[in-house]
């Protein structure tokens, strides 16, 4: 028999493989050359130092929004609001990063912290409403997304600037960008944020799996009544989970504001970093390290897809389809397990 561990590794690999095969079949069906298509994708993601840098840059916020969604999930909450939390985190980081002066050792952490706090605050609202009044977090987080979008646009135009569409750039002292990284990646926008994202993954893993707080959060996630019976404060844990989740998403905003862009433009629609985080978390099985790997997969596919139209003539949406299919296969892991088991049986 396969061990559980082996399944946990095999199933995603098979899912990705099946997704890519399905994508190839679609390309064939529409008269494209799948090999050229996928070479273009790989080229677009890793073709040279620049694209490699860009790919990793793209992965960075995905890790954080993935962690955000996964963290809430583990505590039994569905945070569709990562999107809004990213947006407010972005603004807070840029605000602190551009409007005050301080030595880097203070300024940068302060700007990052501001993002986490802003995101956390955005998570706090649905958290407290759920904890105190039992209001479903899904609706509140959806509403908070829209509020974040419109409010930040308003703030950028009316408070941070005088009717401009982008904020000022953040100061050097609050920037995650690094000349050194830029140089070795031929001026990609890769920045130090990746380290923050990876650290966040470690923190989440440690917090959830190793600490008493994590124990409580997981317990509340699985069984609210038993947790209350055992003396845990269910409401407090719900709020805490949403705040930490929002904090992670807020950090993703800081990645954009202090790293990738160095400023914040007004947005006429959602960034999708938060919504994509849902897919990342689910692909990663809501576990910290699974999320990191899923974010890489996601980032590679998304970044590489940009190269497909120019290099192979394939519409980049093909990759959306491939991602969707991969998610399906991962979700349907039961059937893959079943197939593996029957294969094994027949082999005997």
């Amino acid at each position, binding site marked *: 028999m396969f061990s559980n561990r082996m399944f946990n590794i095999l199933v995603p690999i098979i899912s990705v493989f099946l997704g890519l095969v399905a994508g190839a079949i679609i390309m064939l069906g529409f008269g494209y050359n799948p090999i050229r298509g996928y070479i273009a994708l790989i080229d677009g993601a890793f073709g040279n130092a620049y694209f490699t840098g860009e790919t990793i840059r793209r992965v960075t916020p995905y890790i954080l929004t993935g962690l955000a969604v996964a963290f809430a999930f583990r505590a039994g909450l569905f945070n569709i609001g990562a999107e809004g939390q990213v947006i407010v985190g972005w603004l807070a980081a840029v605000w602190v990063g551009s409007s005050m002066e301080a030595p880097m050792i203070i300024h940068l952490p302060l700007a990052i912290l501001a993002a986490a706090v802003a995101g956390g605050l955005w998570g706090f609202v649905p958290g407290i409403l759920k904890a105190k009044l039992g209001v479903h977090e899904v609706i509140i987080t959806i509403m908070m997304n829209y509020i974040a979008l419109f409010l930040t646009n308003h703030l950028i135009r009316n408070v941070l600037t005088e009717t401009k569409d982008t904020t000022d750039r953040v100061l050097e002292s609050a920037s995650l960008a690094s000349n050194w990284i830029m140089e070795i990646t031929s001026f990609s926008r890769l920045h130090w944020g990746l380290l923050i994202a990876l650290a966040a993954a470690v923190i989440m893993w440690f917090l959830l799996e*190793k*600490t*008493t*707080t994590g*124990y409580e959060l*997981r*317990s509340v996630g*699985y*069984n609210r*009544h*038993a*947790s*209350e*019976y*055992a*003396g*845990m*404060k269910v409401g407090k844990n719900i709020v805490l989970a949403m705040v930490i989740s929002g904090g992670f998403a807020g950090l993703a905003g800081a990645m954009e504001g202090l790293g990738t862009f160095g400023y914040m433009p007004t947005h006429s629609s959602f960034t999708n970093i938060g919504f994509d985080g849902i897919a990342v978390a689910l692909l990663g099985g809501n576990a910290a390290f699974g999320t990191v790997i899923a974010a890489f997969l996601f980032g590679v596919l998304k970044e590489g897809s940009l190269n497909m139209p120019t290099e192979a003539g394939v519409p980049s949406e093909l990759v959306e389809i491939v991602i969707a299919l991969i998610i399906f296969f991962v979700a349907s892991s039961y059937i893959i397990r079943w197939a593996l088991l029957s294969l094994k049986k027949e082999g005997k």
Partner: protein
Amino acid sequence: MSKKGVGFLENYVVEMLNIRKEFPGIVANNNINLQVKQGEIHALLGENGAGKSTLMNVLFGLYQPEKGEIKVKGKKVHITDPNVANELGIGMVHQHFMLVDTFSVTQNIILGSEPRKYGMIDIKRAEKEVMELSERYGLKVDPKAKIRDISVGMQQRVEILKTLYRGADVLILDEPTAVLTPQEIKELIAIMKSLIKEGISIILITHKLKEIMEVCDRCTVIRKGEGIGTVNVAESSPNELASLMVGREISFTTEKTPATPKDNILTIENLRVKDSRGVEMVKGLGLEVKAGEIVGIAGVDGNGQSELIEAITGLSKVESGKILLNDKDITNMSPRKITESGLSHIPQDRHKFGLVLDFPIGENMVLQTYYQKTFSKNGVLSFNRIYDHAKKLIKEYDVRTPSEYTKARALSGGNQQKAIIAREVDRSPDLIIAAQPTRGLDVGAIEFIHQKLIEERDKGRAVLLISFELDEIMNVSDRIAVMFDGNIVANVKPEEINEQELGLLMAGSKKVGGA
């Protein structure tokens, strides 16, 4: 009832022959035979996990057996799903009720075979039919009431009506009395008797030997998946049945020395508590439990017992009054504070409250203590210690589980309960509240749990036992407090009262001299 196709020697309505059913890694039923005669009440007896429910689920078409054959009224049948069972006239009342909480009684009964009019459910007709049926068999129900608003006993009647509505003439009852109060059990027994008069045959699963002796004609015993045999109840005794079941002698009356009560551990004064709907359920109650004694609260379900427990344990708010634990006021304190003040609680609903079913057994063993120094340092858990601790408890309390890393969900009900008791008792509290600690467990497990409670008493702990089983109350308690309508209406010693009198007190009829 037609006699056509009935076996030529015996009048068997259902025959299960050489049934084998496997689950991954376990043979739940191995070559089991069960033959039920027309119009009898046939008991199915066995320890927790012996394979009773599995066998019945096979008969009801929920599981397909690996081997063996089933005959209904002499005809070989293939029961591929519950629909087939229904058509063959087999109805089952499951151990865990199969009722939709938010539906009305009528809706639950007609679900799947609704009377219609113009494509709509003809709810008027349905209600009328339910009323007729309930009158005919003496199963009183309110057809319009929502399931979640009615008592467990009432729910059970709905379950039975459901099968009758579908025209069942073979009725499987899987542990129907485990969740009932003595009054309700009495009513159920009367109902069963009237059902067999109507020509219905019943298969009854129960762990209560007394019930078997009282109503059953024959009894089939299974042990660890193997059929042990079938006996005529009239020619047998509880002792014989029990030893057939577990393979050894069992003592029924719990051995214990007289209690030596000391200081007050729990003192409750003038307590008032409302339920979640705002109805006052505990109405100025007073109670004392001393160190070294077991106080049993006897009472019919719904007289405020749940609210009382929730108030003591901090799970619901006290309106007024006082609760003292070791002379310390714990009224309206948080569950955590109360636990730390020396209280343990074996909850009534082990799945809802007692366990996090998706946690490993090991993590469940520290549900209230994970944050304490023993198991964590600076907020970081020490899994080595947690699992060592769990290992110790598993051994000490004989919790049957593949390992301490196994999810609680995978354990049998009895073993889940043992795990909870291990956790609660091991904390060495001053007061143990045990709410229905043996519900649904086999006699072996019951014996073990009773012993544990008495041991703790002897160590000088106070024990508050809440149970709807008069046997349990009479056997285990040193003092019985009878609860009726939100108040303690009597305080008696078990040796000074018989079950009859106790039953009257519980029904609120009159006061008997207290102790």
